């Protein structure tokens, strides 16, 4: 399980935790997060900004 950080606002997406509030179950790999998903903190789209592995 990996973590990715939104380089715009610093939000961390943790594959192990998912993002249940947005309907992303725990354990969802980053590549399986839908392209319509947006950063819950800054709202920038997945495809619109780079996520860095941390």
């Amino acid at each position, binding site marked *: 399980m990996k973590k990715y*950080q939104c*380089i*715009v*606002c*610093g939000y961390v997406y943790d594959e192990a935790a998912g993002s249940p*509030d*947005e*309907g992303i179950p725990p354990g969802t790999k980053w590549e399986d997060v839908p392209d*319509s998903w*947006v950063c*819950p*903190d*800054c*709202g*920038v789209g997945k495809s*619109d*900004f780079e996520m860095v592995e941390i």
Partner: protein
Amino acid sequence: MSAPHDAVVIIGSGLAGYNLARELRKADAAVPLVVVSRDGAGFYSKPMLSNALAGKKTAASLVMKPADKMAAELNARVVAQVAVERIDAQARQVVLSSGEVLPYRDLVLALGADTIRLPLQGDAVDTVLSVNDLDDFARFADALDQGPCGQPVQRVAILGAGLIGCEFANDLLARGIQSTVLDVADRALSRLLPPEASIRLQDKLSAGGVQFRFGVGAQSVSTGPNGLVVGLSDGSTLEVDLVLSAIGLKPRTDLAAQAGAQVARGVVVNRQLATSLPHVHALGDCAEVAGLVLPYVLPLMAQARALAATLAGKPSDVAYAAMPVAVKTPAWPTVVCPPPADAQGQWVVSGDDENLIARFESTGSEPTLLGFALQGKAVSQRQALATQVPALLA
């Protein structure tokens, strides 16, 4: 011989400055790029400053990338700890406090905004803090360990129950600090939320220990026998260990105005982020685009993309979709997409114990959605609703 005017010079290393630099590098790998910063020029996210305590972040760990790494990644020169003395628009150069003169092909002002400070009386006014950048946060974090009166801070007064004030009130709970939030308005986030949503947020924060006092303003901050004494407009006083001011922001316009650029509330720019001076652009919290000053991340990113394209030779107008703002109050998650200032309509509010959904609908026979506020579990509907709201700047 003067140096060549071939560089893009960006003043400011906040989200606006660095995100423009990133976008520009995607579009133009070759243009010489200089980023000038009056602080250490590490890359950090300003919105994280108001929820850093809960995440056990320090000023050091908030830095996602230090200045040298940013310089390497961007293939840019990053000039840290240097102020800009003035812009000479005629000669197309900026004069730095170090004495260096930087010629530019294009200049970008990403100056940010200053916090508005109340005109307070009293001998301890200088101890009032506001958190507007990373260095401010470092001072704030240090002050929590050892307050202005020498002791660890237990009692905090927050001036202003807006977005930043409520976020800090929530974040301080993570440190076991139950703050008192003061506002001359009659409720929290009064300019963004309908009353029902303000009250739900207040109730949740109050349940965590935050105290709100509405309809009163601070008038003085003085040293008392057991801490700081805040004098209030209703004649009462409040004893605290630290005062945090979160009244609002004022775009930084002085540098642009001195150079002869048109300024209003912010530095006035057109849809291509051009100021009234040739080859001088502005974006972010300092810029006023089509009359709008929007100190949030989403408009800033839209501006960065448009300006990067323009600077790379593809003139592009900035456009804003509807842009919801997340209020970082984990005690009661809140997302708001405020209706335009001149919108005609009313709030329609529904909800239950776990949710609140407020829709701002236009008046008329076929009401359309012009804005919304979502709270609790309903924040997950943000995207779905945002697509229904007309673009802010089409």
